[in-house]
């Protein structure tokens, strides 16, 4: 028989291909930097606890780029995602623990969905090799359900609506070093999954339009939510969700059009590289700033402008190239929806710019926290900054030569600049806004609807446990309670006469069936 059977460790295949290479470089670089950073900034007594989770997570996070078959991909994916819980809850505060629980629950659901999709694909393809999987599912009758499962799972990973809260939750309470890895690399595994698993050019147009619309909605809504939160990390989390929405747009393009797929894939890779580095620099940035004083602090704040501008997509930055690649990909499609998306794309930069302003303001307010020598953090941070600045020039040009060329033209400079200007203008205008509008500031806790969902689950749990919400006088009897009924059913089912009679009846059933 064909090996849909996981023969285990021997059948795990790891190989490096064209898609994997940029991701491998990105993941290895970011996980290394963040490991060093975390080591330097974590008190000696807490290191063991942090790295017990960090090491497996990093191991999975780097090797996932090399995974060549469904099992190894899934294993690495899970190995990275599950121990990350320990990084999120490292602070051991109630909020951190709640964030960790939500993260772990969503991760478990995401893993289950991915597993379901992979199993269907493996059975349909009668193979485990990743390229074969994606190809086979395109012609399978189970195509729609499989792609939906994949998108749902990836969506949970990259924080698409309505799970936009997952990224802010996972950055906010995590120690800076680890957070930079989660911000820079973790969600990019979702992007890698898109490249590896989604079939190209096989889905109906409506399907991909829906995906693109969802991506755009995420891009805009996450930006709005982000400007209303109160910590720099949460802002960065929403910014990531917003950017990941754009990646989803590219995935939507590739789903329906085989011709546009290479362009879309180029855009996904470009976005991943660019966003991974820039976001990592920003996450480390607010920690570095908080460790500095005086002139060094001012210089660091100024240096933050580099990754911020890159994210907004300013000319000559990696963000510009990435956005250009995305526009090209969308442009290759024809129809009302793609054209609308194409027209709206530049406007997403306003949101990003607003987020960056908000981040800058919040970071500037942060007070110096530790007296640990900032030398090592600053050095590591500079390395990431250098990577952000240089990556655009080391771009493998064949992906999108056009984008790099036009980055230098005047008109494109303008298209890249006006959203930023609008954001600055809006920010200035906000100073004169009525007090009511300013009160909106900070109304979004990191995690938004997920927190509400978690509260609902806890309430349901309490209800199931048959406990009253108040803990005081119980309201038992007023409300139909299912738990006592279930308990009573089991009690009477295990009472001797009932149970043994039931067994003898089962005997009779089996005999009757057998001797038909």
């Amino acid at each position: 028989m064909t090996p849909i059977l996981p023969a285990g460790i021997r059948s795990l295949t790891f190989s490096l291909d064209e898609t994997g290479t940029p991701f491998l470089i990105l993941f290895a670089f970011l996980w290394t930097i963040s490991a060093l950073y975390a080591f330097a900034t974590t008190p000696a007594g807490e290191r063991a606890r942090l790295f017990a989770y960090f090491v497996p997570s990093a191991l999975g996070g780097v090797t996932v780029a090399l995974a060549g078959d469904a099992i190894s991909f899934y294993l690495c994916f899970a190995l990275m995602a599950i121990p990350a819980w320990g990084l999120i809850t490292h602070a051991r505060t109630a909020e951190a623990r709640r964030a960790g629980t939500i993260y772990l629950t969503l991760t478990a659901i995401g893993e289950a969905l991915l597993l379901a999709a992979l199993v269907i694909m493996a059975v349909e393809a009668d193979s485990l090799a990743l390229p074969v999987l994606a190809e086979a599912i395109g012609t399978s009758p189970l195509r729609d359900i499989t792609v939906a499962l994949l998108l749902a799972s990836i969506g949970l990973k990259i924080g698409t609506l309505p799970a936009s809260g997952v990224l802010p939750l996972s950055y906010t309470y995590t120690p800076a070093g680890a957070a930079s890895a989660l911000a820079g690399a973790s969600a990019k595994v979702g992007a890698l999954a898109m490249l590896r698993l989604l079939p190209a050019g096989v889905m109906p147009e409506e399907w991909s339009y829906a995906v693109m619309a969802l991506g755009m909605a995420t891009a805009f809504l996450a930006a709005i939510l982000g400007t209303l939160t109160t910590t720099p990390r949460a802002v960065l989390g929403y910014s990531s969700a917003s950017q990941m929405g754009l990646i989803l747009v590219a995935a939507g393009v590739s789903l329906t059009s085989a011709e546009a797929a290479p362009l879309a894939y180029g855009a996904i890779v470009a976005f991943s590289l660019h966003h991974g580095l820039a976001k990592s620099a920003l996450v480390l940035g607010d920690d570095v700033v908080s460790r500095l004083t005086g002139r060094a602090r001012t210089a660091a704040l100024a240096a933050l402008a580099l990754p911020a501008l890159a994210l907004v997509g300013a000319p000559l930055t990696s963000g510009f190239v990435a956005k250009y690649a995305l526009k090209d990909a969308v442009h290759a499609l024809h129809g009302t929806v793609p054209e609308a998306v194409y027209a709206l794309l530049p406007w997403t930069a306003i949101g990003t710019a607003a987020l960056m302003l908000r981040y800058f303001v919040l970071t500037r307010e942060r007070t110096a926290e530790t007296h640990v020598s900032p030398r090592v953090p600053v050095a590591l941070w500079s390395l990431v900054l250098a990577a952000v600045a240089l990556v655009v020039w080391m771009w493998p040009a064949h992906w999108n030569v056009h984008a790099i060329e036009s980055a230098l033209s005047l008109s494109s400079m303008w298209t890249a600049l006006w959203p930023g200007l609008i954001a600055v203008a809006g920010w200035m205008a906000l100073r004169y806004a009525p007090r009511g509008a300013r009160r909106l500031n900070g109304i979004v806790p990191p995690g938004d609807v997920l927190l509400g969902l978690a509260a609902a689950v806890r309430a349901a749990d309490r209800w199931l446990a048959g406990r009253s919400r108040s803990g005081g006088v119980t309201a038992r009897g007023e409300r139909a309670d299912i738990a006592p009924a279930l308990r009573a059913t089991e009690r009477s089912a295990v009472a001797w006469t009932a149970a043994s009679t039931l067994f003898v009846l089962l005997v009779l059933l089996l005999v009757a069936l057998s001797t038909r």
Partner: protein
Amino acid sequence: MNVLAQLPGLLVVVPLAGAAISFVAGRRRAPHVALATALTVLALAVALAVHVLDDGPFRYQVGGWGAPLGIDLVADGAAALFLVLTAIVGLVVTLYATAYFRTDDETAYGHGLFWTLWLFMWTSLNALFLTGDVFNVYVCLELVGISAVTLVTIGGGAEALRAGARYLFASMLGAMTYLLGVALLYAATGQLDMDVLRTTLVADTTAATGLALMIAALVLKTALVPAHFWLPAAHGSAPSPVSAVLSSLVVKGSYFVILRLMLDVMPADYLPGVEIVLGVLGSAAIVWGSVQALLQTRIKQLVAYSTVAQIGYLFLVFPLARHGADVLTLALTGVLVHALSHGLAKAGLFLGAGSLMTRFGHDRIADMGGAVRSAPALTFGVALAGVTMMGLPPSGGFGAKWLLVSAALASGEWWWAAVLVTGGLLAAAYMFRLLSVLLKDTPTELHASKGDARTEWLPLALALGAVLLVLAIPLVSNLAAASNVLIHAGVTP
């Protein structure tokens, strides 16, 4: 003596001799006898597994007569797997028990007779996994039953005695039903050897009635819903090392016989519809057991109901087996991996629960907050065992789920896959309920003096084994390929 050829016989006689010697050795020396026996049996079991992997399954003629005159033992891949599982869990439980049963009270814990009873149980499990004779199965089942019932009551509390009495009567009902089945089967066929039966069985009302009775009796011994009525009380109120053995090994013994009767001895569709009933009951067990686990307030009751649920998975192989050799291979490997990973994880969970109970001095889950602070390795072990229960990767439970889901999808009967996924989510729910309490950061007062390094680290070791099992899946699948079920189904190894 050619030890390799004698392994099946030795695997029964060595623990039996250990049991006899431990009885005359006295309470002080009995633990040493048990440990020495455990190590020997582990070596023998591993040697048997290696031998089967190298040379394939073989038969062992006790007394040199051979079937149908004498009794044959059958050493195939599946049997070797269960023997190794039993030996590993057995060794760990023996080590744990040396710390758990330390008491100076002469009358406590069955007058120090735990070791003898436990070695008898080990003997009977090994004999059950190896036997190829349907009447010999009856004798083995009674050995298992008597030792299990007694071990449940060894603590001596009223609750344990009540659970033991229920277990005893369930055991009697099952034994009589099984023996009646054997009587009818023998009257119809004139044969008792499974292999002879496999080649000679023809459609016949009496033989079918006999086999149906035997299957039903084994279902009762395996505690498949709705015949699970004796399990939660027995597994929940026994001393923890006993609970671990009961949940992780004893129910597997009777299950293994069902597996052989249904998939190896009987031709396909010999008992039409029974495989569907077993699959449906398995699904019901997964859901009902998990829901009840979710409702429990005492830790060992929760773990016991989790066993009710996990047993359900084992029965999904029967409806899937109708779909050809490929699906059968997947499903059989899946249930074998599940049996192994559940065996290790559940033993770890029960031992962990036992250690927690000793330290807290009670068994209420709600009041176990803060365990992570004072017993981190213990809590970590319980959490890891939970990972396998939920089927999260990377763990043995995950490997089992993967294989079973693949089999369900390949068979086209996707609803079994839906049951598997639901079961995983429900397991996550009840494990999180437990873990959320244990991981609370509240200060606690524990009976630290009673803690022994063994009771803290052994559960973790078992749980780690269950997680790392995912790496041993190729080995398991090779052993599955060397099992008579697959060989007789025409799957070339």
